[in-house]
């Protein structure tokens, strides 16, 4: 790099060249100092998936177990049908984390994220229709809203992100 300065056509060109070399050198130095890649351990991911999709999956299991009883209320049937996205999301996230499988799963994860987003919006619309987002609503519905709508949405968005990221063995762009 430094030897090229002798061949620069003008002082301004030499200065510009030298400045670029300093930047390139600093960039390379910072690059070699990066020892962390920002990837999350699979054990932490498993805990995250259980936290995000576990409550909805448990609710779905409960609903399915009670759906066949003759006096089951209609809400149980609705939860048994619509809540199936919980175990599906849990299964896909676990499959991805434990086996590294990614092929074809991103569109499914995107679909799940859309469904969870709709669930969040429906919950908020319901709250607005019943007196607005007041402290009272959060006290009585907040935990359900977080466990069954917000956390699954956050988990599914993270899953979409993971499924869209480049595998560590893929060639890097230069």
């Amino acid at each position, binding site marked *: *790099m*430094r*030897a*090229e300065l*002798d*061949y*620069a056509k003008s002082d301004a060109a030499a200065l*510009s*060249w*030298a*400045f*670029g*070399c*300093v*930047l*390139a050198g600093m*960039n*390379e130095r910072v690059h070699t100092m990066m020892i962390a890649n920002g990837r999350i351990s699979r054990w932490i991911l498993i805990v995250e998936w259980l936290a995000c999709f576990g409550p909805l999956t448990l609710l779905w299991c409960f609903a399915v177990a009670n759906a066949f009883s003759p006096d089951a209320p209609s809400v149980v049937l609705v939860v048994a049908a619509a809540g199936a996205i919980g175990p599906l999301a849990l299964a896909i996230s676990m499959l991805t984390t434990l086996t590294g499988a*990614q*092929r*074809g*799963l*991103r569109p499914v994860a995107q679909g799940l994220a859309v469904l969870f987003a709709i669930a969040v919006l429906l919950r908020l619309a319901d709250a607005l229709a019943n007196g607005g987002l007041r402290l009272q609503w959060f006290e009585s519905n907040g935990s359900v809203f977080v466990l069954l709508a917000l956390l699954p949405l956050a988990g599914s968005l993270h899953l979409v992100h993971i*499924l*869209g990221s*480049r*595998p560590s063995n*893929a*060639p*890097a*762009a*230069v």
Partner: protein
Amino acid sequence: MERERRSSPQTLTILQTLAAQPRAWRHGYDLSAQTQLKSGTLYPVLMRLSDRGFLDSKWEESELPGRPPRRMYRLTAQGRAYAKSEVAAHRASRATVKLARSTP
């Protein structure tokens, strides 16, 4: 899902410039002048290409006495194949975009 990342436009420019005369050794300044890339862009790309085995490099003693040697670069056989495939892929993607834009 495995996604193959294509080279950046700057990398493509450097590959095209080097592939134009694959046997010739080129200085960094010469490449910079021809590609209009600044040294801060050029050298990181050259380093990545060297790391991946696409470039050969050697030192050339300066004609000026007491001055440091200059580093020269050229494509390896693997680099030539890579340059060819990258340029072809770039042309194909441009043709696809052109076709998509011209289709009503």
